């Protein structure tokens, strides 16, 4: 399990489709993971995340498509032959068995040598930071501790693949944040390829090597946290991860130049801008934290005059709502996140005129 990088695609899913009756829960999903990778499946409730995981585990027979592990087609194999460790949101710890017995449950089936099992359970307990708690029953453990037992139990069988379905969502915020890094560290140390389902974007951004974003059964984007945040493939991804301002009724004038009413915006090629034909209507997006206010200088390019319509305090920063006239009486609202220090220094207030600057390389172009 430690020879990283030998096989480039450890798990690959090809054109996975799953229908429940007439309802299509998963629609033609393909992706692959490398050995030892930590993959997060992210998406809104009901989009099919759990179904993806269940298909990979062998709990749900795909309607079509294949699942390949280590070059072997496992689509038809039952869960018990796929060597996967599973952790559910509910943990599913056996309430009548102690933490130790829970962890040893799968081991006893595999190894007849009681000694080996015992030693291994002790190690696993130590690994998840529960040394000495082995003889407690699940009910005597806190939520976070139960989660660790569930993790240890899943790891006990040395799985090739670890599948986690919203493992942290039942925990309170503090514990959740601590367990994020613990799980990640453990996973790195053991080098086990892991797929985690979550609907919490922050969790996905902080933990994952790569993120898989699903919307209504379709795979909309796959990439590193940086990629999906900086280059969201669709407006859906952009607003699901972080937030983004959208300006509609934009037209491409010529290469790198777009028109918004009477304004002209320069947008660097490559950010989706190249694919558009001249004259074609598009939509552009810019994240609130990328909106610069004019006091920062700038050379007049992409400078727009706005009116501050509202200021909302958000602790370390303020969110400004800015009205941008487009043409005639038509205007659009743009949110801008500005550090508190700057708002105070510039004495920003509502109803103030404020020029803003949209950096050439921070604007995304989407089909309208």
């Amino acid at each position: 399990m430690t020879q990283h990088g030998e096989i480039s695609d450890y798990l690959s899913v090809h054109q996975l489709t799953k229908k429940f009756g007439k309802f299509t829960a998963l629609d033609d999903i393909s992706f692959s993971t490398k050995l030892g990778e930590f993959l997060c499946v992210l998406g809104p409730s009901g989009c099919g995340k759990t179904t993806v995981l269940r298909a990979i585990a062998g709990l749900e027979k795909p309607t079509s498509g294949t699942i390949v592990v280590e070059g072997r087609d496992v689509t038809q194999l039952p869960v018990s032959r796929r060597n996967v460790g599973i952790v559910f949101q509910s943990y599913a710890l056996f309430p009548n068995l102690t933490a130790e017995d829970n962890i040893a449950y799968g081991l006893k089936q595999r190894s007849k040598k009681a000694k080996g099992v015992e030693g291994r359970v002790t190690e696993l307990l130590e690994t998840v930071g529960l040394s000495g708690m082995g003889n407690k029953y699940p009910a005597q453990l806190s939520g976070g501790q139960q989660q660790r037992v569930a993790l240890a139990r899943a790891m006990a069988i040395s799985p090739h693949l670890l599948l986690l379905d919203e493992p942290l969502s039942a925990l309170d915020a503090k514990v959740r944040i601590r367990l994020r890094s613990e799980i990640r560290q453990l996973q790195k140390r053991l080098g086990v390829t892991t797929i985690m389902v979550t609907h919490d974007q922050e969790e996905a951004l902080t933990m994952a090597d790569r993120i898989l974003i699903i919307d209504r059964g379709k795979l909309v984007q796959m990439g590193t946290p940086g990629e999906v945040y900086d280059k969201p493939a669709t407006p859906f991804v952009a607003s699901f991860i972080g937030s983004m301002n959208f300006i509609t009724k934009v037209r491409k004038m010529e290469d790198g130049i777009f028109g918004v009413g009477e304004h002209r915006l320069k947008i660097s090629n490559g950010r989706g801008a190249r694919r558009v034909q001249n004259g074609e209507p598009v939509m552009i997006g810019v994240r609130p934290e990328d909106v610069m206010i004019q006091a920062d200088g700038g050379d007049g390019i992409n400078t727009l005059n706005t009116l501050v319509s509202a200021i909302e305090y958000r602790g370390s920063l303020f969110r400004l709502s800015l009205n941008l006239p487009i043409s005639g009486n038509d205007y659009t609202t743009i949110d801008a996140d500005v550090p508190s220090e700057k708002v105070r220094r510039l004495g920003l207030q509502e109803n103030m005129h404020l020029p803003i600057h949209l950096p050439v390389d921070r604007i995304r172009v989407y089909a309208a």
Partner: protein
Amino acid sequence: MSQLAIEAPLERLPLSQTIDKELWIRRLLIGLVCLWMLVVVILPIFQLLSKSLMDNAGNFVGFANYVHYFKTPALSNSIGNSLFVSILTTLIAVGLGFLYAYALTRTTIPGKAFFKGLAMMPLFAPTLLNGISLVYLFGRKGLFTTGFFGTIPGFDIHLYGPVGIIISEVLFAFPQAVLILSIALNMTDARLYEASDSLGASKIKTFFTVTIPGIKYGLISAVFVCFILAFTDFGAPKVVGGNFNILSTDIYKQVIGQQNFVMGAVVSVVLLIPTVIAFIVDRIVQRKQVAIIAAKSVPLIPKPERLKDTLFLTYCAFIALLIVGFYSTSLFASLVKVWPYKLNLGFWHYNFSDMGGGGYAAFFNSIRMAFYSAAFGTVITFSAAYLIEKSRQMRVLREISYFLSILPLALPGLVIGLSYIFFFNAKGWSIAGMFIPNPLGFLYATMGILVMSNIVHFYSVSFLTATTALKQLDKEFEIVSESMGVPFYKTFVCVTVPVCMPAILEIAMYYFVNSMATVSAVIFLYSANLPLASVAVANMDDAGDIAPACAMSILIVLANLLARMLFGLATKGVKNEPRPGW
């Protein structure tokens, strides 16, 4: 230092073909469950239906028997009689049961556990005993009829006939009504009451706009259950029915009295129709309910109210006194030398040696039968419920099995008994010109058929208890163990059974108690060399030996109370282990 060991995977035993084998075992078992229900429920009922379409010589006569039935007023009048007594019983039992359940759940009266326990008392007695107690209270030489043996002027309530039947059946149905309505009243959401209060609604208005709609489904269920109980019971009407004919006693008279099996089958079908309708309506209603209780509700905690609490305490005490008085009378009567002349106490009637019915041999046969029914019944019911609830394969077959499992709820004991005679006594069947000998004929007149009839008779309630308990388990247990390569039967034994132990014990007790007390199914199935206690009660009562019949009933009650106590102890033992989530 420990990491290395973890990274080096433990030597893997071949996970093997056992998996496919396991899948097949599961399929096979689900198939067996279906087959079992087919053999013990569907085929016998089918046999009964076909018997009702034949003459006594076995020739097909179509609906001729039914035509004859409805043209003979002596027979068909019983339908009206049966409906009359069971509807009245239902109204009274549900009314009394509602007040009692209300007191137990919505007031702050003391001694709730005591009152609840006492209300369950009739569940432990054969219904024959209800009739016998009534005879001692209101019969020709009854306590009240003779004015406490002449101390005060007596009065006659004309016990024999509808009066006697209704009183016994109310007593019989009362515990069920209390149970169902208590559950319903407990489930209602406190927030509704707060809302009603804050809107300034009066108590009466709140009662009719919040309380009653809130327990609607429980109320409907209680009505159907009480109706079915009263409509199909046989024990009490046999003792106090007099010349007032009802369907259940008619079946008995046709089969045992006149050996007219065909007419017995016809009356059985007539008895079956309203029961099946009640069953289906109740199922439809209960299905609707699921959606409603799914939402989380806030439990209602009653507040003390002087007047209300006093009234309800008085009511409960009154009912409790009636129940205690009722059963004490029979206990007393069983110990009295010659009622009402020689009132010295002793155990004369507990010596059954010169009586018909089988005496202590019958009693111990009953204990054996109840024990086997509890043991086999619990294993079969719980395993079947597990396979149906916790499998992922063979959905259609599992749904059919589920339906078949709750179907016995609609089958009166007499109908089960009679159809078992027909089915297990059949020499064989000619199907498409081929004669197939009956492979189960050997069970006829054995302990086996008695136990089987009990298991079927009390199957549905046990099955639903098991299913409810299983539904409370995390549905991921099976998946987790499967992913670790642990066979499902191991998880069943190591996790499912221990965690469900309270429900399992409850099922076992339910089987035992009911098998001890029942008379309706087994009265057709016992044989002379396998006498049973409850049947002995019926036969001794028939022969006019009412005191020994009473004594035997008391023994049955005592055996059941003992079983209940053992159950209490066992449950306590189980509950002391740390078993979270319960």
